[in-house]
C-alpha cells in the first residue's frame, strides 16, 4: 500500500546520540540529500568539547540540527519537529527543546536499566507516560541493524555501529530524500574496508525498507524546493567557506597564501581545509604556538605573500603583540577569530560574539585595524575575500570575526563566478620613491595612506622596519614628539578612511520607529524575527553590520532616523557600547550569552517589547 504523503513548508530535525554514534555524519548526509532536492537549509551541529565523554552520559551527547524549508531557512530552527534519540541521554538532553507534539524516534534497545539510571531516569520514559504529549516512534534500531547485517560477516561491534545509517535510511524514507549520494559517500568513506561499506549501505537500505514496511509510520512528508536564484549550489559550512575564500583571495591577488596556525577549536577546520589546497600555492604551517603562527604569517607578508592566521579568542589574546607589530609595520595580515564562549577556555564548542572588544581595542598603544564579520556560513567566502582586499590595499592587519555558529553551521551556497570576484592584485614597490634615488618606506599613497610594499629581493629598496616609532617618510627610528603624534594620527586616519559600503536598511513600512541593528552571525535569527513581526503587522526596520571598523559612513544617519534602535548581540553589549560612544544614541542592548545562537522566537519577543515601548 502506498503511504500517503503530506506536504510541509518546513521541518526541523535534530539527530542526537552519544559522541561516538556518528550523529554529525548522519546529519551531514541528511543535509546533503536534502540540499539536492532544492530545499533551503540551515544547520547547527552541537557537540561536547570532550572527544569521548563517558558513553551514555548527558555530557557526552552530540547533536546535529537541520532546518529544511520550501522558503528561506534563515536559522537552524528554534524547536525541532523531529528528534532522533539514539539513547536515553540524547532524549533527556534534548526533550526540553522540542515543540509539543514533536515526533521522537528512539532506539528502544538503549532504553534499558543501566542506560536509564545513568542519566537519572527512574522509570523508562517510553513507558511512564512522560512523553504523552509527543508522537513517539519506538524502533529497535540496534536489533534491527544487527539482524540486517547478520549475514554480512562483519563483527557485531561494527554492525551495531552502523545503526546510525539505519536511522538515516528511515528518515530518508519518511522525508523522501534522494539517497544515491549517500551510498556513493559510504563507498568512498570505507574504500579501504569494502565489507564495512557494504554493511553501512545494507543498514541504510534496511532503514529505508523498514519505513516502507512497518505500520508505525503512516505518513511520509514532502517539502517542496525553495525558490532560489538559478545556478550551481553546494552546501557549505562557514569554516569551509572561509578556507575557500582564502584560496580565492590567493588566486585573485596572484599572491601565495601563507597560513600560520595553531590547532584550536573551533578554528582548526580552516587549517585542515587549507592544507589540502597546496596546488593553489597555499602554504600551511602548524606552528609551535599561537604567537609563532601569527609571527610566521607576518614574516610571509613581509616577503610578499598573503599572510593569514586562524584562531579563536584565546589565540587572538596571545597574538596581540604581533598584531600590534603589524599595525606599526603596516603590512597586510588577515587574522581570523572563530569566536567561542569565553573568558579563558570557556566553552570551546559553544558560540559567542564576545571578542568584539578585543578585536577593536585589545592591543597596547593606539593600534587601530579593520574588523569585519560574516553574517552566514556562505557569506564567510566573500568575507574572507573582503578581509584580504582591505589587508592588501591598505597594508593593515584585518580581524575577521567569525564564530562557532557560522563556522560549523551550513547552508546552500550559490557558487560565484570566479572571474567576477574582486581583483586583488597589488603593486609592489619597484623603484625608489624619494629624492636622490632614496627609498622612503613610509611615504604614503595619498589616496589610501598605504605605504609602499617593498619586499626583500627588490634592488635599490633595501630598508629597515621595526616596532620602534618611525619617522614619517623615511621610516628611520624617531622619538620626536611631533612625529609620534603625526604617526599615531595617520595610522588612525588610514583605518578610519577605508571606504566600506553603506549599511543597507530593510524597512518596508514608512512609519517604522524601531530599527534592529545586528552584526555577524546573528543575521539569520534577527532577519527571521523581523519577518515574523512584519507578518504579524508590526513595523520594524532591519540593518546588519558586516564592517565593524571602520563603520559605514551612513550609520550615524541611519541610527538617527529611528526612535529606538535595538542591538542584539551574543555578548554583554559590546557593539551597543561602541554605538553609544560614537553616535550618542541610546541604543537598546539585547544580549544573550548561553553559548547558543538566538532563537527567532526570543528575538521576536524582545523586539516586540521595544516596539510596544517606542
Amino acid at each position, binding site marked *: 500500500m502506498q503511504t500517503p504523503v503530506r506536504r510541509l513548508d518546513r521541518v526541523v530535525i535534530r539527530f542526537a546520540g552519544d559522541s561516538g554514534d556518528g550523529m554529525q555524519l548522519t546529519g551531514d548526509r541528511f543535509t546533503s540529500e536534502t540540499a539536492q532536492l532544492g530545499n533551503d537549509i540551515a544547520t547547527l551541529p552541537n557537540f561536547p568539547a570532550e572527544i569521548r565523554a563517558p558513553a551514555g552520559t548527558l555530557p557526552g551527547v552530540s547533536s546535529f540540527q537541520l532546518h529544511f524549508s520550501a522558503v528561506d531557512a534563515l536559522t537552524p530552527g528554534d524547536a525541532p519537529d523531529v528528534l532522533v534519540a539514539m539513547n536515553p541521554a540524547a532524549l533527556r538532553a534534548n526533550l526540553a527543546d522540542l515543540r509539543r507534539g514533536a515526533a521522537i524516534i528512539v532506539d528502544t534497545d538503549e532504553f534499558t536499566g543501566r542506560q536509564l539510571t545513568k542519566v537519572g531516569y527512574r522509570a523508562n520514559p517510553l513507558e511512564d507516560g512522560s512523553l504523552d504529549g509527543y508522537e513517539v516512534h519506538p524502533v529497535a534500531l540496534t536489533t534491527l541493524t544487527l539482524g540486517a547485517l547478520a549475514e554480512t560477516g562483519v563483527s557485531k561491534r561494527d554492525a551495531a555501529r552502523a545503526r546510525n545509517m539505519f536511522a538515516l535510511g528511515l528518515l530518508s524514507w519518511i522525508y523522501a530524500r534522494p539517497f544515491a549520494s549517500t551510498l556513493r559517500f559510504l563507498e568512498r568513506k570505507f574504500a579501504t574496508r569494502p565489507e564495512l561499506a557494504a554493511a553501512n549501505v545494507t543498514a541504510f537500505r534496511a532503514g529505508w525498507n523498514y519505513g516502507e514496511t512497518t505500520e508505525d509510520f503512516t505518513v511520509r512528508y514532502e517539502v517542496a524546493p525553495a525558490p532560489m536564484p538559478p545556478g550551481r549550489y553546494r552546501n557549505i559550512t562557514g569554516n569551509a567557506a572561509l578556507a575557500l575564500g582564502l584560496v580565492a583571495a590567493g588566486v585573485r591577488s596572484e599572491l601565495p597564501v601563507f597560513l600560520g596556525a595553531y590547532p584550536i577549536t573551533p578554528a582548526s577546520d580552516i587549517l585542515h581545509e587549507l592544507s589540502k589546497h597546496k*596546488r593553489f600555492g597555499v*602554504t600551511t604551517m602548524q606552528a609551535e604556538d599561537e604567537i609563532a603562527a601569527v609571527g610566521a604569517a607576518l614574516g610571509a607578508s613581509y616577503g610578499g605573500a598573503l599572510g593569514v592566521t586562524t584562531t579563536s579568542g584565546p589565540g587572538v589574546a596571545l597574538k596581540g603583540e604581533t598584531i600590534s607589530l603589524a599595525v606599526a609595520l603596516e603590512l597586510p595580515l588577515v587574522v581570523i577569530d572563530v569566536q567561542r564562549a569565553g573568558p579563558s577556555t570557556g566553552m570551546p564548542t559553544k558560540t559567542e560574539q564576545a571578542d568584539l572588544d578585543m578585536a577593536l581595542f585589545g592591543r597596547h598603544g593606539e593600534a587601530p585595524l579593520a574588523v569585519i564579520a560574516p553574517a552566514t556560513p556562505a557569506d564567510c567566502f566573500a568575507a574572507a575575500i573582503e578581509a584580504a582586499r582591505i589587508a592588501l590595499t591598505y597594508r593593515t592587519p584585518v580581524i575577521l570575526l567569525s564564530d562557532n555558529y557560522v563556522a560549523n553551521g551550513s547552508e546552500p551556497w550559490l557558487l560565484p563566478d570566479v572571474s567576477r570576484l574582486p581583483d586583488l592584485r597589488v603593486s609592489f614597490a619597484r623603484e625608489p620613491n624619494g629624492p636622490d634615488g632614496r627609498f622612503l618606506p613610509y611615504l604614503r599613497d595619498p589616496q589610501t595612506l598605504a605605504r609602499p610594499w617593498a619586499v*626583500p629581493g627588490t634592488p635599490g629598496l633595501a630598508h629597515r622596519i621595526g616596532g620602534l616609532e618611525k619617522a614619517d617618510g623615511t621610516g628611520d627610528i624617531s622619538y620626536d614628539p611631533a612625529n609620534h603624534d603625526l604617526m599615531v594620527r595617520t595610522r588612525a586616519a588610514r583605518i578610519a578612511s577605508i571606504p566600506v559600503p553603506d549599511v543597507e536598511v530593510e524597512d518596508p513600512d514608512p512609519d517604522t520607529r524601531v530599527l534592529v541593528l545586528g552584526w555577524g552571525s546573528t543575521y539569520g535569527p534577527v532577519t527571521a524575527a523581523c519577518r515574523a513581526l512584519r507578518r504579524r503587522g508590526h513595523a520594524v526596520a532591519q540593518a546588519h553590520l558586516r564592517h565593524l571598523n571602520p563603520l559605514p559612513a551612513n550609520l550615524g544617519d541611519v541610527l538617527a532616523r529611528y526612535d529606538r534602535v535595538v542591538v542584539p548581540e551574543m555578548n554583554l553589549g559590546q557593539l551597543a557600547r561602541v554605538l553609544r560612544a560614537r553616535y550618542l544614541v541610546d541604543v537598546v542592548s539585547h544580549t544573550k550569552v548561553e553559548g547558543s545562537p538566538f532563537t527567532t522566537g526570543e528575538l521576536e519577543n524582545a523586539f516586540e517589547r521595544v516596539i510596544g515601548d517606542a
Partner: protein
Amino acid sequence: MMPEVALSLTARDFRSDQEVRWCPGCGDYAILAAVQGFLPELGIPRENIVFISGIGCSSRFPYYLDTYGMHSIHGRAPAIATGLCVSRPDLSVWVVTGDGDALSIGGNHLIHALRRNVNLKILMFNNRIYGLTKGQYSPTSELGKTTKSTPVGSPDTPFNPLSLALGAEASFVARTLDADRQHLQSVLRAAAAHRGSAFVEIYQNCNIFNDGAFAPLKDPDVRDDHLIRLTHGGPIRFGTDGRFCVTHPPGGFGLAVRPTAQVPPGEIVVHDESVTDPAYAFALSRLSGSDLRTTPVGVFRAVDRPCYDDTVRAQVAHATPTGPGDPTRMLTDLLDSGDTWTIG
C-alpha cells in the same frame, strides 16, 4: 633560489646611514664590524639578505646594516623569520638575538626553529645579562649572580645555550667570541655555508652591566689554558704547548679534560663536527659551564638533515600542476566540487 653574482662589495656597502647607538666599548661594535666585513664574502646581492631581530641591545643590529631588515618583537624573531624563509627561498635570512631574547622570552621559538631545521642563521649574542633593561640577570647568568633584580644572588640555574640547541637537535652549532674577529668570521663563514638552521653563540661583553664576563677567555696571559679551539679533524688539545687534551673518561658518558702527558696519544678525541649523533657535540658543550674554565669555541656540530622550508616548498611544488595551469579554471573546479546541484 639564491641569486649568485660576481660582486665587488665591501664592508662599507653594508653600512646603513643610521648612527650606531650602543654604549661606547660594547662588544656589539666588534660583532657588527666583523659581520659587515664578512657579508661581502657571501656573494649575495644586498637586497637578498635579510636580518631579523627581536628586542634587546643586540636586536638593534638590523638598523645598522644596509640590507633588508626587521626589528621585531621580543623573542619572536625565529618565528617571523621562519615565515619569511618558507615563502622566499631566494633570501639569505639571519636572526640576531641575545641571551634574554632567545633563551628566555623566545625559548620556545628558538627550539622549534632548530628542531625544524629552518634555513636560518641565528646569531645569539650572549652577555649573560639584560642590558637594555639595565642590568637584570639573564637565563645565562651564573647561579648566585648579584644583579639589580637579584640583590642576594640569582637563584636560577643558567642554561647552557649550546646544550639546549643540541637538545633540539640543531644541525649546526658553534661558539665564538666578539673580540676575535678572525674566529668570528670563520664561524660565520661555516654557518652561512650550512644548509639548515645554524646556531651561533657569540660571547659578547657588556661593559656597562657585566664587564669582564668572559675575561678568562680574552686575557692573553691565561686564555690559552681556558679556550679550546675546535678544528674539524684535529685532536682536541689546548693550553700552553697543548698541555691539556679532551678524552673519554673511563666508565663515563661524556668527555673530560686531562693533562695531555697522562693520556696515550690514541685516546685524545679527534674533533669531528659531522658526527650524526648529537650526543658527541652535547658532551663537548658540557665541558664549559658558568665558570668558563674549559670552553670550546668553533663549530661543534655541522650535519646534514632535511630543512623544514625545503620540505614545505617541495610539498607545494609537488601539488602544483606542471605546465600552465589556469588558476581561474582550477578555482572554479574546486568550488564546484563535492555534492553540488543546479537550480533553474
